[in-house]
């Protein structure tokens, strides 16, 4: 008997939780209420899942607990919001990034010629400091007074369009001066980043290829700047649905790039050093949110208007009608339910299926699953595991950022949104078992349900024995109560439902 319990602990635990959550509830409420609460729960679960799955994959593969994951969620939300409502921001900032990248790439070849002349360790240190100071001061000169806050200030019109603040853009000549300085700053950065020892081992691209790539980056940047006015008008004239898709893509890319930056800058130099990694991502979680506040402002933005696909102010009777009507809510068993939330659920399911299939069916997925078990052996088979690490970090970060974009029309956009989702994602992966993809899914569903039903009961009131009055509370109580589920799971199975034994 005890051995039966021990062997099937996972299953029993899920059943117990399901019974606790649903068992008592279904009797006391109408099916339509029950279903709409379920759907709300799944909406939350879907968003949690987008954050938690990346967190769990990253931890499983490289034992890194990324405390800055919530920052990426926020980053995604802001980039998405800006793409959707305020493309002017990108026409003014992207050229700077493109120019920097182009300059850094070119300068790596300079670095190759430079470092062999710096032969002692001491001189290298000195060169590092000089280059860093040079890069920092030129960058400071280049970006001083850049009107980033003004570019970000916009108002939302009644129909959901944005009214950008006039005069926020700098004159073209000023912008070109900045671009020039940024390109100059890229030179010391490129030299700093170029490989120093054993140069024959780390092949750089042939110089003509680099020139081609960085040249086209620079050209794209300049073109973007030149067309900034027409481009903005053209962008805002696009259909909101298309702009929303663009927002998701831009947000996800920004998140993925952020993830790559974190991995290469803060994680990779400290492999085998989990405390340092942890503390560094923790530091980034403070600095990152502060940076976002500095760029985008501290105040909460109202929810981004949902795309017109879910935006008509009407109520469809059935899902089939929705396809022609694009109403903002749909009839579910006689109760209206926002269609945008259904969309969130669909995104969650699609991502789950896509990543799951990727893990099961592709070679990359096979390598990831193998790496979770023994990354050294994968390395010994001739596979560059570090690159896989970076890729998975980018994937996980991209998913979190995508979650941020998708949450924007539902929750609004504010700097603190990441912390909330990160915490729930932590709880979900602890419940589901760190490093398990399925565990992340199950954990997030449990949490989503607990939140939704918890919210309902707390608001409707609970009859406690020995008390006449109904005890009511705020959603905060339901939010805090998810921690109790985690405590329960820990008591029964410390490694989480799908976790491996320690």
């Amino acid at each position, binding site marked *: 008997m005890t051995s039966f319990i021990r062997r099937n602990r996972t299953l029993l635990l899920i059943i117990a939780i399901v019974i606790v959550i649903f068992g008592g509830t279904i009797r006391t409420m109408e099916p339509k209420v029950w279903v709409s609460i379920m759907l709300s729960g799944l909406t939350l679960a879907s968003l949690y899942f987008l954050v938690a799955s990346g967190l769990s994959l990253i*931890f499983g593969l490289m*034992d890194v*607990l990324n405390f800055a994951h919530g920052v990426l969620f926020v980053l995604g939300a802001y980039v998405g919001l800006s793409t959707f409502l305020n493309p002017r921001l990108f026409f003014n900032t992207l050229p700077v990034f493109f120019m920097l990248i182009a300059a850094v790439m070119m300068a790596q070849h300079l670095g190759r010629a430079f470092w062999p002349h710096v032969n002692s360790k001491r001189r290298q240190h000195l060169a590092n400091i000089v280059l860093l100071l040079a890069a920092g001061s030129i960058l400071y000169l280049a970006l001083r007074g850049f009107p980033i806050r003004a570019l970000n200030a916009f108002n939302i019109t009644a129909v959901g369009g944005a009214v950008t603040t006039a005069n926020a853009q700098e004159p073209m000549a000023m912008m070109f001066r900045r671009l020039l300085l940024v390109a100059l700053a890229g030179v010391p950065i490129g030299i700093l980043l170029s490989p120093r020892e054993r140069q024959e081992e780390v092949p750089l691209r042939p110089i003509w290829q680099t020139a081609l790539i960085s040249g086209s980056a620079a050209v794209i940047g300049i073109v973007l700047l030149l067309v900034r006015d027409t481009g903005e008008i053209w962008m805002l004239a696009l259909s909101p649905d298309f702009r929303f898709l663009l927002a998701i893509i831009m947000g996800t890319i920004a998140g993925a790039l952020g993830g790559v930056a974190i991995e290469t800058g*803060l994680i990779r130099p400290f492999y*085998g*050093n*989990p*405390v*340092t990694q*942890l*503390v*560094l991502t*923790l*530091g*980034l979680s*403070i*600095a*990152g949110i*502060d*940076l976002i506040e*500095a760029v985008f402002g501290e105040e909460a933005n109202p929810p981004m208007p949902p795309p017109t696909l879910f935006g008509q102010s009407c109520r469809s009777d059935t899902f089939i009608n929705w396809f022609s009507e694009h109403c903002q809510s749909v009839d579910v068993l006689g109760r209206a339910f926002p269609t945008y939330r259904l969309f969130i659920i669909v995104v969650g399911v699609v991502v789950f299926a896509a990543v799951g299939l990727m893990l099961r069916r592709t070679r990359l997925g096979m390598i990831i699953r193998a790496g979770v078990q023994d990354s050294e052996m994968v390395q010994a088979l001739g596979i560059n595991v570090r690159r896989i690490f970076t890729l998975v970090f980018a994937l996980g970060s991209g998913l979190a950022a995508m979650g941020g974009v998708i949450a924007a029309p539902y929750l609004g956009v504010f700097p603190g949104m990441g*912390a909330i989702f990160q*915490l729930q994602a*932590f*709880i979900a*992966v*602890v419940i589901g078992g*760190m490093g398990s993809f399925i565990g992340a899914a199950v954990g997030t569903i449990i949490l989503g349900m607990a939140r939704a039903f918890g919210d309902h009961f707390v608001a409707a009131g609970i009859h406690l024995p020995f008390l006449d009055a109904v005890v009511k*509370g*705020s959603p*905060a*109580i339901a*939010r*805090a109560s998810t*921690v*109790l589920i*985690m*405590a329960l799971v*820990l*008591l029964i199975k*410390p*490694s989480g439902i799908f976790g491996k034994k*320690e």
Partner: protein
Amino acid sequence: MNETLSTTTHSSARRRLAQWWPYLLILGLLVLFPLLAGATIGDPAAAQDGAGLSSLMQRAESGAAKFWQGMIIQILIFAIFAMSYDLLLGYTGILSFGHAMFFGTGGYAMAILIGRNFNWSFGMALLAVILIALAQSLIFGVLSLRVKGVYLAMVTLAFAEMFYILAEAGDFRKYTGADDGLHGFPVPGWLSATDHRTRFYYLTLIFFVAAFLIIKRLVDSPTGKVMVATRENEHRATMIGFNTFWYKLTAFVAAGVFAALAGALSAMYLVSVTPSMLSLGRTIDVLAMTIIGGMGTLVGPILGASIIQLLGYWLERWFGASWTLVYGILFMLIVIFLPYGIVGTLRARSFQIRDGWKQLQQTLAGK
């Protein structure tokens, strides 16, 4: 016989003095600080009755002297908090991300109990703070110590966040003041930090010295030695007959109680408590203090608390609202370039700290 005995006592006293003189020197400076500050940076106009000690005391209650006493009070409070955290992280190897839970609960318990809902006396409330911290750390210690490494970090974070959410929730506004927190609760007049800054200063100093001595005694006791053994090699500690769970729990409870005391003192000093006392940010502060100062030493966290507190003050003056951004970046740079902290780097030749750190990393990596 008698002679040898007396020489040994003598030499042992001398040895003790040799060992303790830096501590005594610092203690002496701290004791004299209000008077020195009163004499140098106090406002001369505040002194009414001419000369002597009482006039000095009056000058100490004014101007920059008062301000810097306040600064030291806050440093000492955070030093208690940081030492308690080091007991967990540096000595026992437990990486908790929920230590602010105890700090905040201590503060809130003090504020609520002496506040208008209960009107308890200071002594009663202090006793209650200790009892609450004991119960809280026992419960959450038993729960979180079931897991290790980063799991423990996440779990403790979640527990702390639960308290944070509850403190912010509107449901208990009557007691907690929801997201505003509690301000201006009736601190007994004789303890008011605004009216009797120097008195509060000495009270904090007494608490600090007591905390230092007690924690030092704990880490030097047989129990403390087992905690270090647990950090170094938990598996082996189990095999030679220690039930390491109890030692980890002991560390957890002791750390919880001292953190709660620090929180209660902070509440008394500021006459306000806010949900941010329970937040992850507060845990990060104390983690930064411990790491920057140097883990596994008691001097380290004290040094770290001073640095962070002063740094925060200066950064805020220089950078205004965006000082936390600078703080976050500085924090990361320090972790990268001074991984063993200041005291640890100074003692880099003494192997314990550096390798204790490595050991901890290995435990966290699950090896």
